[in-house]
């Protein structure tokens, strides 16, 4: 796995960065709007909520054989449909608290 983390969130809230940073080293699946699903082991990085993935694998290689040789990719945030998170790695209560704090900061 690659644990390189590159983020440059100029406009994206810090909450997204902080949340995705906690997923470094965890298995995450990114589903794109064209139904392509990418599994990456260990990296999530966002810039303008774009995602840079390293060491990826495709969940449906038969359907997308051209992605077999792709190891790293940069995904524009607007084409992401879902980011499937590992349930065990998400603390929902903490996430709610972080969202509330973020909302408070933005109000101020």
């Amino acid at each position: 796995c690659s644990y390189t983390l590159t983020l440059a969130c100029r406009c994206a809230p810090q909450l997204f960065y902080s949340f995705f940073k906690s997923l470094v080293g965890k298995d995450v699946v990114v589903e794109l709007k064209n139904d392509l699903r990418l599994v990456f082991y260990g990296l999530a990085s966002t810039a303008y909520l774009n995602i840079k993935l390293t060491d990826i694998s495709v969940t449906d290689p038969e359907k997308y054989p051209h992605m077999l040789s792709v190891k790293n990719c940069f995904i524009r945030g607007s084409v992401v449909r879902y980011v499937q998170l590992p349930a065990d790695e998400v603390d929902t209560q903490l996430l709610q608290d972080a969202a509330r704090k973020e909302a408070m900061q933005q109000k101020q």
Partner: protein
Amino acid sequence: MCSKRSPNHTMGDSEQQQEAERVCDAPWPENGDDWSDAENETGMDCELLQAMAEEDEDINVYNEETFGMDLDTNGPTDGVPFGEPLLATPPPEPDPKPPSLPSLPSTPPTQKPPFLLRSAPWQRGRGRRGVLDRGRMFEDPAVMRVVEGRPSLMSLDSAIVDCGHALYRNTFQENRMMPAYKKTSVSGSMLQDDAIVCVIGHRGRGQHMNSNFMDVPCPISSYGGRRGVLRGSYSRRYFGQRVPQMHEPMMPRSPIFSRQPLTPRQHFNQMGNFVFPPNHPCHSTAQPLSPKIMQLRFGANSPGHSPFYSPSTNPVEPFSRCPGPVTRLHPQHKRLLSQKPRIFQRKSEGWDPCCNLMTTKEKEWITRLQMIQLQSENPYLEDYYYQEYYRRIEAKMAEEELGIRNKKEPPKLTTPYITKTDTYTPVVHIEGSLGQVAVSTCYSPRRAISAVHAVQAHCPEEHKDTRQQRLEILCKIEKLFIALLEVEEMERMKTTVLSEAEERRLMEKSQRKVECIYSQLQHHNSTASGEEFLPFLVVSKGKKLLARLLPFLKLDAALTVLHVVTSNLPMLMSRDTEEALPVLYPPLRNVICVLTFNQLITVLKDLTSSESPSTFECLSLACQNKFGLSLLYALLSHGEKLLSSGVPLEPSIGDFETWTDIIFQVAAQLSQCSLVEPLLLPSNLLTLFCRYLDKRTVHQLKSNMESATGFLALPS
């Protein structure tokens, strides 16, 4: 052989023509066999090297005079394009006889063309002509040239890269002159230099910088320039010119430069562990450098501290020297990552996914540049989720190491199972299109958030009041959560406060907030009586709010909440569709543990003496509910603890009879119906039942309880 004119020397046309003729008269043997390194090497090398040395010296002197002496006087409006800082670098005195210099006929010095081709307009008339002439002699269409291009799309996306120049290296020249250094086809060093300045310019926080800002390190391995020698210093002026909106050349808007003076820790973080890679020692310049240049030098000659973060000499841990906790991985996170087995080992250790376009140091440097924007003065606030998440994991692992058994698990993310269809028919399909039109396949995920509008628009009149009330309660809960977060924050700050006065002040403020939240929960609807806390207990978010508020309440207030819960337990259990009641168990158990015997009997009466449903039905419902059964067990367990402790109980009249009656009723219910698994099975329950019941009943209870939990219910 072409010779480089001194930049200070203005030549007339005739002189230039003579110079060119001399160039053209260079001895090129027409017979290729006559080209021999052995014959011409010595003479050619000496002439070449001498010319190179003279040329270097001239340019060094010129640069110093031009850029080193008048840094303060010239403003940022010279119009010199960005990228010129390198021109200000006084190139070091080259080695007169580099051993690896290949001997080619009429080989001019070649390290200067990259600079002079990018020279400022006012320079171009002087030295560019000769250089270009020289350069053209080695024109090779296969060789990349120094051109100025538009920034790449990739660079535009990143917050740091917004340079106006995309510079390419003349690799042929570089390869010739820097055989000892690692060569890369395209060097990103120039981009890195531009990127630093653009980071400063684009950050937009209006923060000031200190004078050390200009000490920007730069990986030197691929940036050869003059025979692979490091750049000595930047001109302050050129940075200012790049960002014309800067009134002072040293006014970036980087987040790392705060208005307030840096704390020692911040200063340390910003200084970082800047160690310039020592593998390319800088050749010291022959000419003396002005103090201005000395303090602006970077690269190998840079001072040891820098607000920016240079490529670390340790490529193993790219984040070991990240600045600030926002961009640094938590130590617990690092430990978890190091422990995690690497399942995928697709590449060998030496394989570089970037095809060696950049060195490791350069990659790290870029990474750190990108992280500059993430630096924060308040990492706990801006990086709250990550910091708190791994702090909790660390605390949990510490407890596990100490052997503290904690059955409480963090709330997991649960999503309803939705059958995903393998194929879907797009609403709009354009024949031959590469992509598909995006069609939502989710089930209105934001419906709950926009409930207000949905309810007002589509809700029938008869249901409107109920839903409106629910929305009001939800809104109130959110406001109270914010207050509760402040209370928790003040509680956390108590440990960091040094003075007692400050701590007392915090405690008072915290208590006031807690009382405010409590009163809001207790008297939500002033018209309805007997409905204290109930509207919030019906909602799962309200349960969570109360669960987190209970530890801060005084005993009287907490007891009131416990009474409300036990009195309305059947209703709460029946309306707990999301099974959120268990979240109340830990704080309520802590309240139960400090009850007196009299208070305990009062709570048990609330639990069992409701008229509708009857006691039997109430107990039956409790046995079928995890929270209800666990609460019942906790009450009985505490009573047994009080009875066996020997402490004077000071009961009221009838307390012991009530206690005995409840024991028999509970035992009868537990032995008859099937039990659910409780949240916690106290160890002293069988001892309690043995005290009052016969062996057969106790044995039946034991088997019933064990079958529900899967654990042996041994008497303590």
